[in-house]
């Protein structure tokens, strides 16, 4: 019964979405608002019924039979609901409808809300139609099996259980930013007011996307067993491109909001972000590439998605081309100003996204050309990996960071470059010293030097800017800094820490494989590892081989226990690494296989990942900064009647007036 109820609820949501779009785009007012709210409720309930089917292990539901199993722990039964194509499409629809429902609650009445709900309703209709007619999660089996097929064991992990919901809040959140842009274009109202009301949605979506991507990277780091956290896999790039473009968007929205400038560019970015999010979905779901994410390798589904992508993207770009000429240009500004710095920010981020796009789709296009016989097979099959992305992206990111402290300190309209540079000299000096120290310690790699240089420059420069904003007010004033300043500073410092961590980790991580018999000792970088013994352990749905390894460092000892788990149902094994955290980085130990020629010995891989927590912590701070900026909006809105005191704080005197 419960699956049929879910099916019905999904149809009700579809009906509500149709009504929402029709009324939102025509009459507007209360009716589309109520329908959007209803659509959100129906979608959440539909998702709940699917989760109940998974928790109850109702194997007469085809999706449950394929993806769950009696031995699976409860939390992964729940997460299993979206750990497959159909369930994740329902999650996608739910988030999309959820954004409409949230808008119906939080947005003021008016044409912006009406048309945005209308466009969002159109998108929701499209996705629910795709869900119900091309990939329904509620299909029943006539002859239910006795037990399920189990889930890919690699996905039985807390980080990756939360990865899709966070990622979708980001990805799909871009759909509502898109709807707001379309609404503004239809109404002919892309102005400061529009930007002020759009930015919170963009901030929320972007911050969630950051969390989602970071969770995926953390999972890859400890679950895939070889310690990498980013592989430039097309799937990862598919999420990274919208991230870059929406990062540009939340910055250009500032210019549009505060100065009324860059309006058409901002709208263009809103459209582009959503198109890239759809493109990412197409890449992941269509089977044009293979990866752990590609659970729907069905070409017809790919075609449907490509068709939808073309229609949505084409219509949006057409609307933009038609309406953009009517948008007013903003007030003038000097190249050396906050506007100028934010323009540079947008250029670097947009070009970075374009470079990622080239690296991601070139192999696919060549492959297609090769299969169609247009070019030779030899030329058609290429792989573009880390060397390309490192070479092309590192300069963009470095420039982005180079300008970041200037952007924070420069006033609107016109700044004096000389005093700014003089004021930032201490940050530059610290950065140069840090880079030299890093190079001396970590080997003379060009990436390492650049990464540490710009990273430290940003962290110190941003810190100086915060101190300047506090002024002589002391600690009390420090605490009273507006949330927007906190958000910006924390996100930017997070970016600096991330870049330092990423370059140091990539350039100086060490790893070695040791074949060890019980009792034997391996040594690496001042640590000793004694392989004591192996034991067999039974988990809920797997059996594991666990190694006991005695780790000694600085006179302290500790036993760590890496495992390999074999899952009976899926007939696959996974590596559970043992990680010992230290201040400077992670000691990372993975249990490999038995040495074939010497069965008493086991291959144990020991790696040291310096500053790895800076990578994930930096990404976390970026997201925290985004959410804080959002909180600033919400708080300001609720205190809208209070006198505007923040204006003075947000534009402190230029550094020229600060004694150096």
């Amino acid at each position: 019964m419960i699956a049929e109820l879910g099916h019905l609820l999904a149809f009700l949501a579809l009906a509500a979405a149709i009504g929402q779009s029709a009324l939102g785009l025509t009459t507007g007012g209360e009716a589309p608002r109520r329908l959007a709210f209803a659509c959100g409720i129906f979608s959440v309930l539909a998702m709940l019924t699917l989760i109940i089917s998974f928790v109850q292990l109702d194997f007469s539901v085809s999706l449950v039979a394929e993806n769950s199993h009696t031995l699976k722990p409860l939390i992964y039964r729940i997460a299993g609901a979206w750990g497959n194509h159909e369930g994740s499409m329902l999650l996608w629809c739910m988030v999309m409808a959820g954004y409409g429902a949230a808008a119906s609650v939080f947005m003021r009445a008016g044409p912006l809300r009406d048309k945005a709900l209308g466009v969002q309703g159109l998108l929701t209709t499209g996705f629910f139609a795709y869900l119900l007619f091309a990939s329904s999660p509620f299909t029943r089996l006539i002859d239910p099996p006795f037990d399920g097929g189990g889930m890919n064991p690699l996905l039985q992990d807390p980080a990756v259980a939360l990865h899709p919901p966070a990622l979708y809040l980001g990805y799909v959140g871009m759909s509502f930013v898109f709807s707001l842009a379309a609404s503004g274009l239809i109404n002919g109202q892309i102005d400061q007011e529009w930007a002020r009301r759009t930015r919170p949605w963009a901030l929320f979506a972007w911050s969630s996307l950051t969390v989602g991507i970071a969770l995926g990277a953390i999972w890859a780091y400890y679950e895939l067993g070889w310690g990498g956290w980013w592989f430039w896999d097309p799937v990862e790039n598919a999420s990274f491109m919208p991230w870059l473009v929406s990062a540009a968007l939340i910055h250009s929205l500032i210019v549009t909001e505060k100065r009324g400038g860059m309006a058409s560019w901002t709208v263009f970015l809103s459209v582009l972000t959503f198109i890239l999010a759809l493109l990412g979905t197409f890449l992941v779901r269509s089977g044009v590439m293979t990866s752990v994410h590609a659970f729907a390798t069905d070409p017809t589904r790919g075609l449907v998605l490509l068709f939808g992508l073309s229609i949505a993207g084409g219509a949006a770009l057409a609307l933009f081309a038609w309406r953009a000429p009517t948008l007013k240009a903003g007030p003038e500004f000097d190249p050396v100003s906050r506007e100028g710095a934010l323009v540079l920010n947008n250029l670097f981020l947009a070009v970075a996204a374009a470079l990622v796009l080239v690296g991601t789709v070139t192999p696919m296009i060549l492959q297609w050309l090769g299969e169609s016989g247009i070019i030779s097979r030899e030329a058609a099959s290429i792989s573009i990996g880390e060397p390309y992305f490192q070479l092309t992206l590192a300069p963009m990111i470095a420039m982005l960071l180079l300008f970041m402290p200037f952007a924070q300190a420069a006033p609107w309209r016109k700044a004096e470059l000389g005093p700014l540079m003089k004021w930032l000299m201490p940050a530059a000096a610290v950065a140069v010293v840090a880079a030299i120290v890093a190079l001396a310690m970590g080997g003379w790699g060009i990436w390492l030097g650049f990464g540490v240089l710009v990273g430290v420059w940003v962290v110190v420069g941003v810190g100086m800017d915060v101190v300047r904003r506090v002024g002589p007010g002391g600690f009390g004033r420090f605490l009273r800094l507006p949330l927007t300043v906190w958000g910006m500073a924390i996100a930017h410092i997070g970016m600096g820490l991330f870049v330092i961590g990423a370059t140091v980790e990539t350039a100086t991580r060490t790893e070695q494989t040791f074949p060890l018999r019980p009792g034997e000792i391996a040594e690496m970088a001042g640590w000793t590892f004694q392989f004591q013994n192996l034991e067999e352990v039974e988990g809920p749905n797997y059996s594991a081989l666990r190694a006991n390894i005695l780790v000694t460092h600085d006179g302290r000892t500790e036993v760590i226990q890496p495992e390999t788990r074999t899952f009976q149902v899926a007939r696959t094994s996974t590596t559970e690494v043992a990680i010992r955290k230290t201040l400077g980085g992670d000691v990372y130990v993975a249990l490999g296989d038995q040495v074939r020629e010497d069965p008493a010995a086991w291959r144990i891989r020991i790696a040291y990942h310096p500053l790895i927590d800076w990578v994930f912590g930096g990404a976390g701070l970026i997201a925290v900064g985004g959410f804080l900026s959002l909180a600033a909006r919400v708080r300001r809105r609720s205190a809208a009647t209070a006198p505007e005191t923040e204006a003075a704080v947000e534009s402190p005197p230029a550094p020229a007036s600060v004694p150096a």
Partner: protein
Amino acid sequence: MRKRSQRLWLIGAAAVLVTGAVALAVVGLQGAVAFFQSPSDIAAKGPSAFTQALRVGGLIEVGSQKHEEGGKLLTFTITDGKHTVPVQFEGIPPDMVVEGKGVVAEGKFNSNGVLVADRVLAKHDENYMPKEAYDALKRASDSEGESTYKEPTT
């Protein structure tokens, strides 16, 4: 600053940046790209003909996996049913690198004609074969002559 010069400045900055980015992309695409080769491609030209990094796909030949240097190195051969390529890899490969299954190895040939892989890729579940491995097998079996490769019965 005048509108006109503001626009000129913007266009100039964007032009410089885009030119630089195109240059970077071209350099990157020329130097940092690995071409895919099947074992038969390599047998046709000889391993010494390949100086750049490349990817080789196929199946791990049954019975070919060995550990060398006391267990530090993993060696195996990749087959497409017609020809084979010896591969060595230092470290512990992903869990699904198993004899008889599809694999893609990325690296460079050493002077002995052994592919020194710095990455070994397999998919994370039992039914999957990397696309490139599948293509290599398909091409070898489509070309003339009987394949010597027998599907392992598991």
